[in-house]
């Protein structure tokens, strides 16, 4: 987020405060730890790229830090938009959400915020940096994804790969390109540097390319297989998970601007185990959690000097999202979903 950019060391501060809080026994966190102990479990919704092993590593480090024995039930996200929609739908009917803590992108938390579905909490009181706390105390930002067009390097040479977003409109990609249901990627461009009109025209032009549709994981699989040669936008989550296995999918580096969704941890309203969830949300900003997250999910904060994300964004035009763009991104994500053909009408 732009605001976060102005204070690049907030995670360090948060980490120090969090570390101090366990030693100094500040009352709010003690109460929370005590409450968490009573709750005993957490339904943890997080990106599938974290993997079950990564989730369990997060759980183990969390328990170690706070002297707890919380059982962490990990739900890997298959489609964040759909699951956020589900939480909103259940919330409207008064049914508690399935998950206690949802780690989804800032655009998805925007939907919860617009629908007033966050269980607000004073995260600052337990050590979170004020600038990491977003959506009116609804979520805590802790890592950044990067999103760019991607291609299968076995089929497309680096020379032929897209060099700009507009290159995706080249007729040579017709029928060879896929787009995921993560339509917030495009909506971020609309709310940011491109403006709504240009982005909407771009999205409409993309549909003439006979795009293959799917969820992010599906699109990535089809790219891996070579069923499609190019994906309109893929997050580095997919790429980093597979990187160690020599997968042939790579970013179209050089395409600018670079989209940088942030992962936020937030507690949906009426969650069954809110205390564990609030504590976990702040824990994710600590150095030990950051290390685990980067190891398994591949992300770190773009605002902490020295992290791989920080290094990656240097000298790049990066699109971050801010809270004042939430409603627009929420609206355009749905609209672009319809234009691409993800919904029937």
């Amino acid at each position: 987020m732009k605001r976060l950019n102005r204070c690049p060391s907030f995670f360090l501060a948060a980490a120090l405060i969090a570390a101090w809080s366990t030693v100094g026994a500040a009352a709010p966190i003690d109460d929370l730890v005590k409450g968490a102990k009573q709750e005993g479990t957490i339904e943890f919704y997080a990106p599938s790229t974290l993997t079950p092993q990564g989730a369990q590593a997060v759980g183990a480090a969390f328990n170690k830090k706070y002297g707890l024995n919380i059982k962490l039930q990990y739900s890997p996200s298959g489609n964040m938009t759909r699951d956020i929609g589900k939480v909103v739908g259940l919330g409207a009917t008064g049914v508690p959400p399935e998950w206690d803590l949802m780690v989804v992108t800032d655009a998805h938390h925007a939907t919860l915020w617009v629908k007033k579905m966050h269980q607000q909490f004073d995260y600052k009181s337990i050590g979170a940096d004020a600038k990491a706390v977003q959506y009116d105390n609804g979520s805590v930002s802790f890592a950044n994804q990067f999103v760019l067009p991607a291609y299968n390097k076995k089929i497309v040479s680096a020379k032929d790969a897209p060099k700009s977003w507009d290159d995706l409109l080249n007729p040579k990609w017709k029928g060879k390109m896929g787009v995921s249901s993560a339509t917030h990627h495009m909506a971020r461009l609309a709310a940011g540097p491109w403006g709504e009109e240009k982005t909407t025209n771009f999205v409409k032009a993309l549909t003439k390319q006979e795009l293959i549709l799917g969820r992010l994981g599906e699109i990535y699989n089809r790219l891996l297989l070579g069923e499609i040669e190019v994906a309109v936008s893929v997050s580095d989550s997919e790429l980093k998970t597979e990187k160690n296995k020599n997968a042939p999918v790579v970013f179209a580096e050089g395409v600018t601007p670079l989209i940088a969704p942030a992962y936020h941890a937030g507690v949906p309203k009426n969650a069954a185990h809110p205390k564990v969830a609030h504590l976990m949300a702040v824990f994710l900003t600590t150095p030990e959690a950051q290390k685990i997250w980067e190891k398994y999910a591949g992300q770190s904060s773009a605002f902490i000097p020295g992290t791989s994300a920080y290094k990656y964004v240097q000298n790049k035009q990066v699109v971050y999202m801010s809270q004042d763009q939430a409603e627009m991104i929420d609206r355009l994500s749905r609209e672009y979903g319809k234009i691409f053909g993800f919904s029937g009408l």
Partner: protein
Amino acid sequence: MKAEANLGALPRVIDSKPSGLGLFAGGLTALLIIMVGAPLLMVVLMSLRTGFPGEGGPLTLANFIAVYSSPGTYKVLLNTLLFALGSVLVTIAFAVPLVWLLMRTDLPLKGTIYVLMTVGILIPVFLRTIAWILLLSPRIGLVNQWAIQLFGLDHPLVSLYNIPGMAFIQGVSFVPSAFFMLAAAYGTMDPSLEEAAYTSGVSKFQTFLRINVPITWPAIAGVMVYLFMSAIAVFEVPAIIGFPARILVLSALIFTSTNPPTGLPDYGLAGAYGAVMLVAGLTLAYFYVRLVHHGRKYTVITGRGYRPRQISLGRWKWAALAFVALYLSMEVFIPFLVLLWASLLPHLQLPSAEALAQVSLDNYATIFDFVDALPFINTAILMLAVPTGTMVLSVLVSWIVVRTQISFRGSLDTVAFLPHAIPSILLAVGLGYLGLAYRNFFPVYGTIAIIAIAHMITWIAYGTRTTNAVMIQVHRELEEAGKVAGASTSRVLGRIVLPLVASGIFNSWIWISMLSYREVTMALALGTRKNLVISTIVWQFWGNGWVPQVSALGVLLVLFAMVVVGLLKIGFSRLGEFGSGH
């Protein structure tokens, strides 16, 4: 199908007694009406409301206007029609010759083929579809790559990203169901015309086309209608093959209306889409009933213990085996090999020397890091509870319909058959709406119970058809003897009728258990974190990009299924032909 039509000539066995039996029959009828009617009512209600379940608000036609004023809807309807028709034709093209070969000829290896067909049912359609992508994708499909290399083509030979491609994949996956449904008709077919044809020197193939097919036509037509109704409700193939290429069918629209890839759920739209599906289902059910009744005119079932002579295939034996092998390759072998291949790799890729160098068992070693015990426990619950509940209800319904003179027994039979007309996706969405909007009265949303209820409702029609059929075959003398000896009605049912129909019930129990195991449409529509089952895990893994892991899981499940099915086949062979419950 009203069993009473068969019973007109039967003497009265048990009198209608309003004080006991009548009340019980009334209660059972009421229970079924609630089970079937409540979700349907919800579909109607949600089609007339906007907003989320439980929000209330005035009734409105806005959803219908939105849906039916959109030209896209009519394209979807056409797609659905073509997809369903195509699927049925593909199924019949394989199932009828297969059933003839296995039921009427001396084809070798029948036992093995039965087991393999049953195993085929247990391979999730999702996984098979992924295998077909690897074979027939226009860009990467092995068949296309070989064809281009062999014939120097400049374009793919075939593509599965179209309605015929979807229909082919779906049709092949329906074959085992159609096979078992037709097996009874072919197994008990009067062989006299067939034998007369052979005596007259007519070839086996001509006899098959001119005698066997026409004489079993009512059964085939009935199966076609049944499959058509299933095809308009299935979700897997339209989701994996159709949706990415924007080929939308009704089931996919209903699913995505309540589980949207972008935006928020819109139950009203789902209800409006579902209305047309419901009308289609009821219309088809009407024709199905008529066909089944019409089929009775062709009744050719022989006396008890009669075994029609098996036709010697002679030198055609090998051609027949090749045909069976072709089918089994598509249904079992190729999908299994693709699964096996994918399970040994770090990420999905086509066969190559480079890929071969990466082969390992790592995914097997880590599979249980990706999936905990809950989906297995939930699946086991479904596989035990659904067939048990369905068959208990079916036996009770059939006993009243077939063995009593209760005045409204025909209505009870009709109510039990009604779920056959309700597309499963619609039933699930209706139940989900009920669970959300009226959770205080129906507190099962998000539990495995709601999926079990949906499955039971769906298969009660099948269960009662089976139990009706087996009860009709049981002679009444023993029951009458029991009554004369002073046994109570319940004792007669429990000690005399049930043991006599145990074989048929067991077969149906196994069949419903397998259907419940592999069912994904309703499980997905009603799925939450707490009621995950194996079939929904497969879908989730595919969406997450965990194809190697889900392939490893698939291989283990298929191997497990082969062992279980083989053992059941051997162990219970005395109880009747396994899986031939129809």
